[in-house]
């Protein structure tokens, strides 16, 4: 089971956030991801491991390569945690609409 602490720890690194940003466009191989960073491939692998353990990315074999893919559900939880007030106001504005219809 993924713990929220792991998700936040994973997101605390700018390099890992950059990895997630790259994966928003679609799955990529570790080599492809590494080419975007000024770091050695083992470091990229380490970041990918942390992201995988946090449930933020999944790994799939594609022939001889491993492809990494974004898993959005932990991020959705984070968003709900970050913006409870926005959700609150969106719901309230919906209710306001209903009340105006009944007035």
């Amino acid at each position: 089971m993924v713990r929220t602490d792991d998700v936040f720890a994973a997101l605390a690194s700018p390099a890992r956030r950059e990895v997630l940003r790259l994966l928003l466009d679609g799955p990529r191989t570790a080599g492809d991801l590494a080419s975007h960073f000024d770091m050695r491939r083992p470091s990229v692998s380490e970041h990918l491991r942390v992201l995988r353990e946090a449930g933020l990315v999944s790994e799939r074999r594609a022939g001889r390569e491993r492809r990494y893919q974004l898993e959005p559900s932990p991020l959705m939880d984070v968003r709900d945690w970050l913006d409870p007030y926005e959700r609150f106001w969106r719901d309230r504005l919906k209710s306001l609409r209903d009340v105006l219809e009944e007035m």
Partner: protein
Amino acid sequence: MSDGIYLDEFLPHSPAKVWRALTDSGLMARWLMPNDFKLEVGHRFTFQGVPMPAAGFGGTGHCEVLAFEPEKMLRLAWRAAPDDPSTLDSTLTFTLEPEGTGTRLFLAHDGFDSGDVYQAAARRIMGGGWAGIPGRISEVAAELPVQ
């Protein structure tokens, strides 16, 4: 992440009617929360709401009417209860603008305190150009097959 929540919505009703929904205690109770609101600068009142643990909000908003201009603007202070984990001391502003046959309602909920652990943690995570990502996440999630 910006310092506040800014939403706007077109409502197919006159500004006078929207204003009534925003400032009549009974009508407010129906769309917002039960309250003892009075349209009077300096009036202090509470909203009895639903607790939001993620925001450290116990459920009772401690509010004050800060300013208003009939059918145009209403500004409230919105504070957490003294014993809530959150030290929320925010400002809520409704602005009404006539638009076509209706009203555009702007909602600004700002003044979040960066010293509040609930807000500070959010900022830390959102640093480094992280803003905007949650919206993209929703788009990506919407396109994913149900597993």
